[in-house]
């Protein structure tokens, strides 16, 4: 069964949810939807998105398993800077503002279990990538073309 720490957390979870779940809000309108399509090896999605709550879904039309990793760039970091770091295999963590949100999809399938919700703010820049590789030592999919930069308008 679960370890002691997890068991303790399980007991705490009940009380946490009392505060955590009671936070539904009332938007002016339903969130926008952006559908991302992954292929071998590219992403199809707009270069820019509108500000506001947005639900992102992911479909994999390739023959390889893919992921869609979203990270927000730090304010002031340009799309060019981030793209150059990726191209040079340099660490991008210093350039990103947040942790990441990831969706997975098997070949030829749509992820109908989980989607990502982001409240985009005007002027933000986000990166989309697939960090998978087809085999040990093979280039990451992002180096093969599965890398996009998105601006919030």
């Amino acid at each position: 069964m679960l370890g002691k720490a997890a068991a303790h957390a399980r007991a705490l979870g009940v009380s946490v949810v009392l505060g955590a779940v009671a936070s539904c809000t009332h938007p002016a309108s339903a969130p926008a939807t952006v559908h991302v399509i992954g292929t071998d090896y590219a992403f199809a999605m707009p270069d820019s998105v509108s500000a506001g709550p947005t639900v992102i879904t992911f479909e994999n039309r390739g023959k390889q398993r893919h992921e869609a990793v979203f990270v927000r760039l730090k304010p002031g970091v340009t799309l060019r800077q981030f793209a150059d770091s990726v191209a040079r295999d340099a660490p991008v963590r210093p350039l990103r503002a947040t942790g990441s949100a990831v969706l997975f999809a098997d070949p030829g399938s749509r992820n109908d279990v989980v989607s990502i919700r982001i409240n985009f703010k005007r002027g933000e820049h986000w990166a989309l990538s697939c960090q998978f590789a087809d085999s040990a030592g093979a280039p990451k999919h992002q180096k093969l073309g599965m890398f996009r930069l998105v601006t919030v308008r």
Partner: protein
Amino acid sequence: MNRAHAVRAAAAWTLLTVVAAACGSSSSGQPKEPPVVTVIGHDFALEAPDSLPPGPTRFSFRSDGTVPHEVGIGRVKRGVMLDSLLKVELKGADITGMYDAGEGLLYLAPGESVDAELLVTLERGRDYVLICTLEDKGKPHSTMGMVRGLRVMND
């Protein structure tokens, strides 16, 4: 489950039902946002509810860990017992075939936040798994306690 835990669970169930109902619609007919459940990552546990009502649910994630953590969410396949899946995972064996294809996760390095959420339409009576598969010194965090089940209520 001891008595105190049972009482808290009953109270949580009641409140969740009320909140879920309140979040589902409005008198003006305007769509309302799904409720938000915050999962908290620790070294090495995931703090989250044991059960939730069905319907669209937003999962946010924060971590007070000293190493990177993630919360991955997957839907357990029909016919797979949640306890069995958790036992397999805690042993370090592969559970990939025990949940449906199509997962999502939120990742945080220490001190980071993430301004994105996972949106899951929780299906009535189904089980979900919450897991951190990152490794520390070659050992998956899941085998150290960072895996748990989430049961969706039937009513």
